């Protein structure tokens, strides 16, 4: 999947987990930029992304994530 396709599919996941229907994230968005993207939601978010894209991340990989772009790259490498 391309970066833009994954980003498009990530939008509703972010909107649902963070309870913000108008939220739009970009590849450069970080947890600091989004109000409710805290440690509680981060774990839920990662679990939902895993299920949606049918991929499995390791803890090591997840701990290195800094922005949405990193999540997209991780999904791409897991699907490859």
């Amino acid at each position: 999947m391309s970066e833009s396709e994954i980003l498009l599919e990530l939008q509703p996941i972010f909107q649902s987990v963070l309870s913000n229907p108008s939220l739009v994230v970009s590849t450069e968005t970080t947890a600091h930029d989004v109000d409710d993207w805290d440690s509680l939601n981060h774990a839920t978010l990662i679990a939902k992304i895993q299920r949606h894209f049918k991929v499995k991340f390791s803890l090591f990989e997840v701990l290195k994530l800094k922005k949405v772009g990193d999540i997209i790259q991780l999904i791409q490498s897991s699907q490859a």
Partner: protein
Amino acid sequence: MNPAGPYFIGFLLAVVLAYYLVPNRFRNHVISMASVGLLAWIDLWFAGAFLVVTLMNFSAAIWIDSKHQLKQRHQALLLSLLGNIALLVAIKHSNIFHRIGDLFSNWLGSPNPIPALNWILPLGFSYYMFQALGYQFEVYRKSHPAEKSLINFIAFLGFFPKIFAGPLERSTGFLPALKTPRVLEYDNFSHGFRLILWGVFKFIVISNWIGSIIETSYIPDSETSGLYMMLSMVLYTLQVYTEFSGYTDIALGSGRLFGFQLTQNFRQPFLAKSLSDFWRRWHISLSTWVMDYIYTPLSLWISLRISPRKWGIMASIFISFLLLGIWHGSSWNFVIFGMIQGSILAIEIISLRSRKKHLSNPLGRIAGHISTMAIFVVSAQFFKTNNYHETLNWFRKALDFSNSNSSLTFEYNQWPTYHLIAILIFFVFDQFVVRNNIEKWLDKRNAVLRWLFYSLLIYAIIAGTESSVQPLIYQGF
């Protein structure tokens, strides 16, 4: 040795002088020698324990970094963590098995077969141990390579201004700072001395004032009224704050003299709206350490491997703060302290959305402030007493208002009105005016006002040192 006392300040100035007299490439050598030297000066055992932890972590990180396959890296990290935790339990929590034995022997009515070891806790042990654990974790996740210079590593782990009680510095910030050339700068000295002066004032003057007011409330069988004990309970929290934040300012100011910006540990904690907000403002370097190195990996692991449901998050936060409590010591008091914090934070974390609505109106915010302070003031009492029986008895006595009709003065302690007014003025000034940033506040004042302020602080410190300086509470952890 007390970090606000003349021996430490004298030692600090001597090391700063040596530091700037040698070329840049030898400055970390000066820090390392001074740090190990200070520990050895206080007690040879302290220096020995520090060197064991340092050498163990220095070589373990190089070993982790040499593993390129993820599985091998995991195993190397796991072994290194186990080694560190074994050392931590052996030295700091040596009596934990004795205490567990006590619990069972009380139930069974038989003598405790596990002997008490009562080892002396090396100065700064928990602080440099946690920094070492964080460092292993950062090397493991490739935030930076393992440090190859033992001198730099000793300087990072044992930098003496932070050895007494932190702040806990991260290898990601402090190791690069140690590799940056440092020059003598007027600003560093001016800001450094301001911070030290303000810290010594809080540590010696305010903390001792509060100590003199509350000490009688904590003497067993004292005839203190319940109301006075309640007041002492609130003041004790303020004493811990003035003492610990005073010490932190001394550490931060000393760091500035060497050209380092250490981590700020406090950000107006008494203005917190919730307990989670409180832990973002109180002992910040420890709470963020716990969140980054325990809570986040644990909650993600549960979420990824066991269940993404909220119970995993609640369990993670509870375990993390239980461990934060145990970090202070192996007494049941600290376990209870951690359990109180963990339980309330677990409830707060799942009720975040509904609480947000309440906190948006003024009444909700006031209720949030009051309940947060009440929780912390009550749980802080577990730090003051020796065991939970003593704590419970103390609360029983404080809540017994049957003698509250008696005068608030008692035979050996007059109602300390002037001290209370002075403490109140300090509190308002510190939390609402200075806002844990004395450097910024002084920067905005003119020279006359600044020097008047310094003179007042120096006068109060000289007058304050006539009474004995109490040992730093957080130094014991």
